[in-house]
């Protein structure tokens, strides 16, 4: 039986100053309570792990315990087990990236890779360039090291290279510590960087001597269209972050980093300080899971489910959302990015949405500077298609309600803006 008991943080007031920058926004804190069961959540980007067959996981862990128990229960090397890195070499080859065993460091999810890169590269005040909007977890990982984060706008083809070039010209050579990008089915925007722009991005990175960090959690979750080669396939200096979270399960906390040797050496030092080595047990389990061929079928099932949910969300958006709203058309991944008119404040709308039983992530979460208030990220990966439809209908009502107010103000000439009748 549930309870309403509360537990407190009695250490408040004793934390380091650097943690202040990592705090989430006041408004999002206000809605920390949105965990009622009747609420349909489009907030979290959670993989549908229920579709990973328990039998395959049981088989892999069984083998781990019985065949390699003494290794799996022991400390391992900081770079990760060679067998798993061999698996990663093969996975990378399938996406068009040729790497050696030694190019790879196994990390606790790609998230650890972000933290380690920030740790080895960033002093307070250093510049980092990201897409705008960008992954909130990257902003969190970077913020702890107190950099200045500059974001570059995207369109349907990904990060705009003209704007990036403008920024780079202003900053000059080595004017930023790195450029962080999620080229495939970007989180949160859902867009994919085109092959032409990938080439241009590499050129600019070389011209201005600024390393590229390529974060690629969703690359294999493509619903349609041809595979686009990762940036790492075009330039060996690109730092690549991969993860097992979306092709297997986030519960294992397994990811990897591919980086030039000197960077890898620094990353390994930082990783030793962080956790000595990754979980050997998780690594052996993943080796065994990817040892067979069943995982391919499972990944196909997962991708098909996400694709169906993407369809459900796009259809529901087209049916219910007002004509003033625009959204991206992801051909893979987890997210749709909705942009409302510039006068619209999606952040304050969240209060009303929670009351009506639907949540989303307001756009300003994905910017370091408070922009994005007129936008929102909708995750289609987790809810079943019928729930998606119901949730979008509820959200549309809330938007319509707010929009009616904005329209009245615009019609009266009280605020400026253009609305459709």
């Amino acid at each position, binding site marked *: *039986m*549930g*309870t*309403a*008991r*509360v*537990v*407190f943080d009695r250490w408040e007031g004793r934390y380091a100053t650097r943690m202040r920058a990592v705090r989430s926004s*006041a408004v999002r*804190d*206000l809605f*920390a*309570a949105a965990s*009622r069961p009747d609420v349909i959540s489009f907030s979290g980007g959670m993989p549908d792990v229920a579709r990973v067959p328990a039998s395959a996981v049981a088989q892999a862990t069984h083998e781990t315990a019985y065949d390699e128990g003494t290794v799996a229960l022991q400390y391992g090397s900081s770079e990760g087990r060679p067998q798993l890195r061999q698996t990663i070499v093969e996975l990378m080859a399938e996406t068009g990236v040729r790497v050696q065993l030694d190019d790879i460091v196994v990390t606790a999810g790609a998230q650890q890779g972000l933290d380690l890169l920030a740790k080895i590269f960033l002093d307070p005040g250093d510049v980092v360039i990201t897409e705008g909007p960008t992954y909130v977890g990257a902003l969190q990982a970077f913020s702890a090291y107190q950099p200045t984060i500059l974001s570059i706008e995207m369109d349907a083809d990904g990060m705009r290279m003209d704007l990036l070039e403008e920024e780079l010209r202003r900053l000059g050579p080595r004017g930023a510590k790195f450029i962080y990008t999620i080229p495939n089915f970007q989180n949160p925007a859902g867009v994919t960087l085109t092959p032409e722009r990938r080439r241009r991005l590499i050129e600019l990175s070389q011209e201005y001597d600024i390393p590229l960090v390529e974060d690629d959690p969703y690359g294999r979750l493509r619903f349609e269209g041809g595979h686009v080669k990762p940036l790492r396939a075009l330039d060996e200096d690109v730092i690549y972050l991969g993860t097992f979270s979306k092709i297997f399960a986030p519960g294992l906390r397994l990811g990897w980093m591919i980086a030039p040797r000197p960077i890898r050496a620094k990353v390994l030092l930082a990783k030793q300080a962080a956790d000595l080595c990754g979980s050997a047990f998780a690594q052996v389990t993943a080796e065994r899971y990817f040892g067979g061929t069943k995982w391919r079928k499972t990944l196909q099932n997962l991708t098909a489910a996400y694709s169906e949910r993407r369809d459900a969300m796009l259809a529901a958006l087209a049916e219910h959302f007002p004509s003033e709203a625009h959204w991206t058309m992801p051909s893979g991944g987890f997210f749709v990015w909705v942009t409302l008119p510039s006068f619209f*404040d999606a952040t*304050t*709308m969240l*209060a*009303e949405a*929670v*009351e009506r039983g639907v949540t989303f992530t307001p756009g300003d979460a994905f910017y370091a500077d408070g922009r994005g208030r007129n936008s929102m990220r909708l995750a289609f990966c987790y809810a079943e298609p019928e729930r998606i439809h119901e949730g979008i209908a509820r959200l549309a009502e809330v938007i319509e309600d*707010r929009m*009616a*107010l*904005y329209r*009245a*103000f615009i*019609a*009266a*000439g*009280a*605020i400026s803006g253009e609305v459709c009748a």
Partner: protein
Amino acid sequence: MTEKIAVLMGGRSLEREVSLKSGERVFSALQDLGYRALALDVTPELVRTLRSERPDAVYIALHGKYGEDGTIQELLEFLGIPYTGPGVTASSLAWDKAITKRLCVENDIPTPTWIALTADAFKEMGAATALDLVPGVVGEFPLAVKPAEQGSGLGLAKVDSADTLAEALLAALSYGDKALVEKWVEGTVLAVSVLDGPEGPKALPPVEIVAHSGLFDFQAMYTRGETDYFAPARLGEDAIERAVGIAVQLHTLLGCRDVSRTDMVIADDGTPWVLEVNTSPGMTETSLLPMAAEAAGIGFPELADSLVKAALLRLK
């Protein structure tokens, strides 16, 4: 003394975080005092938990919607559990600032001129076409814009010109269905807490508030160093006496019991302009009621204890 006291906090209100801070402080104070204290969040499990835990009284450390508007009070009446603070009627009346202000006008208590507009008045009746009339009716800029039913300065804005009035109204209306536009009164901001005692309601020393930004909003209220407080207030005896008299009068008019806090601005001519009455004042480290109590020589545990004892007296 082993009475079991459930401290209600959190909930779904926009002031959830503030309430959790208030609740935490009250909870540990009650524990130190020897009560069997219970910290409860307001969730769909609340009633079930209250029924199984059977507390002797409830301390309402909730702020905002459901906690301060009569909802929780009505529920606790139904469950037959005594609770701290004002009852259903006083809570419902004070929750709507416009009603409190009407009550002021009817009783010759100064309150700044205002208008109240609902979202429906804008959506269904074209109220936005009349914004040009606002300065004529309410007064010249600057004006204060705020949601009629909300605490902690959420959605509060000082509007300096006609250009930003609409924007401020839209923001206020995302925090509730009714917005107030009120004449901005320059002067000393004062919070006057009133506690019920054996000889009836008695005011604590007024607390003077100096927000560095000039606007005592959510940010100023809950960020250390952004606001200075003076308790007792740096005002003459006459002004203090008048302010205190009004706070006690409003406490009685609204039918408050145990505690209330009236916020007002004392203009340069000494007129105390009433802004609102709070029936569930904050109990955080930067809150005004504990500060006033401290100035009167009443420590936080003693304050919490007196409120709990008053509720326990109502135990049938």
